[in-house]
């Protein structure tokens, strides 16, 4: 039962000769049990925001509260799948799962842990690779493993940073189903913050979508998704409401970007012609 209170967060990265205004006055309340997606162009500060919520980087201004507690450091209430899914390279696929389960579910017996780990490998179709080290897995497999590791944990809050980027369409749908299934079949109060580039994905999954714009990273609009759950992919994508929502989000994303991209395109043509 943990909600997330993002309170006036700003983040300025200072490097030797420049400042990057990555986030500017971000305010957002995510309710306990809610599924919120963040969508926004590259570099608008999505990963930065996730890292701040997870307690990995300290914001320049503002604070995060999870439940009643201010977030200062990473802790096991919050599980994260990073954009570059950081598995432990010295553990096999099985060990990565086993280790995570063991350390976050203290009251499981060794046998239960083992079972759980093997089950998870099965669910993501990697049983055959249980003894492989991460370097021996393909890009997509690694990603599936990282997500699966997160699923295996008993956290209250899940933060996912473009978790399905390296997956093909089918695996992607499978993982989406798994994610929703997990979220809904739990006691329904796990909170999920989900970063994606895929507008369809975000509509299908979320209760709310936060649209961000870059330089500095700001919230542009927050959109409620009115569809009842469980949602049916086919039905949904056919509906009028869906299409208009989709177009609205796309146009939001396009608005600021178009100008700069057009300029870049122009540069390109000038350069190569």
């Amino acid at each position, binding site marked *: 039962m943990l909600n997330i209170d993002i309170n006036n967060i700003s983040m300025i990265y200072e490097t030797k000769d420049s400042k990057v205004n990555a986030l500017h006055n971000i305010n957002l309340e995510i309710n306990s049990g809610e599924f919120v997606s963040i969508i926004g162009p590259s570099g608008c500060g999505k990963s930065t925001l996730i890292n701040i919520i997870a307690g*990995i980087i300290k914001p320049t201004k503002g604070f995060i509260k999870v439940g009643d507690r201010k977030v200062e*450091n*990473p802790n096991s209430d919050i599980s994260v799948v990073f954009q*570059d899914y950081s598995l432990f390279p*010295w553990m096999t696929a099985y060990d990565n799962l086993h280790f995570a389960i063991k*350390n976050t579910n203290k009251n499981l017996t060794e046998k239960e842990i083992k079972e759980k780990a093997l089950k998870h490998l099965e669910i993501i179709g990697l049983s055959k690779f249980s003894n492989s080290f991460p370097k021996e897995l393909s890009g997509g497999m690694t990603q599936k493993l990282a997500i699966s590791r997160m699923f295996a944990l008993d956290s209250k809050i899940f933060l996912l940073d473009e978790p399905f980027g390296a997956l093909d369409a089918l695996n992607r749908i499978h993982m989406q189903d798994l994610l929703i299934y997990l979220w809904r079949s739990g006691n329904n109060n796990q909170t999920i913050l989900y970063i994606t580039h895929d507008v369809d994905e975000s509509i299908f999954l979320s209760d709310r979508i936060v649209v961000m714009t870059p330089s500095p990273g700001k919230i542009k609009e927050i959109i409620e998704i009115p569809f009842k759950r469980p949602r049916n992919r086919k039905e949904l994508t056919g509906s009028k409401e869906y299409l208009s929502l989709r177009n609205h989000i796309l146009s939001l994303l396009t608005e600021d970007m178009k100008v700069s991209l057009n300029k870049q395109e122009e540069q390109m043509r000038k350069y190569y012609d």
Partner: protein
Amino acid sequence: MIKKLLSPLRIQQIITILIFSGLLLSIAIFPNNLQEYAGGFIYSILLLILMVLLIVELYITKNPQKISDIFLVIAILFVLWEVITRFALIDIVVFPPPVKVFAVYFTDYLEILLGIANSLLVLGSGYILAIIIAIPLGLLVGWNKRLYDLSYPISKGLSPVPPMVYIPYAIILLPSFFLSSVFVIFVGSFWPIFLGVITGVFNIDSKIINSAKTLGLSDKTMLTKILLPGAMPHIFSGAFIGLIIGVITLLIAEVIGSSVGIGWYLQHQSQFANYDAILAGMIVISIMVIIITTLFDKVQNHVLRWQ
């Protein structure tokens, strides 16, 4: 067939064997006095063993080029050694010919064999102690910012203290000379390992550390399951250097109230300017280190197979 015989690798091997044979011949031809006769005998046997090893290795190894290269270089070094000493290009008392050096094994084999055993005991104890203390300490220091801030400058100040300086205190404070020797080895090999562990912890990808942090690990699990394996690549290079320094430190550690050990042997012989014995001892130490570190490499390759 002929083509295979004329491959560069094969030619190289033939040349190596010819060199070894030449060396053998030269031992037989040149007259030696009695003591050198023994040396010549041992030298010849060594050369024969090397030749047989070369031929055998070539049939069982996966990397014949490597073996051929090493043996060729050994052969060339022997030739250089012969030439330099035959023509007395440098003072042959200080740099004696092979027969003289190998003759030492004939006279001193007992001292050397016992010495190896004692040295392995002293080195093993001191080095393992250093590993046992340096690794947990290094993980702790690398992990805890405040501890690091404090102990890094202190380490920088203590690490250049030569092991020699500790000797009087070791003699006075420790209950036996053996422990004094062990202690001196310990301080010699401690710092590279300790610094290796700390650098190792620092070089773990911060994403992995963050990922571990979100698992809410206990400090102990964090140290043993994340920091230790993550720091392993640097720990191994630190431990390797620590071993080398430990071996070098034998030379001063084994002359604390002792008269046995390969370090003592070298030190003792250098008091009497017996450069043949010093070289003979050095060859033994080198072979000892090559064997130890080869085992070491095997462990390392296994532990780091995830890389």
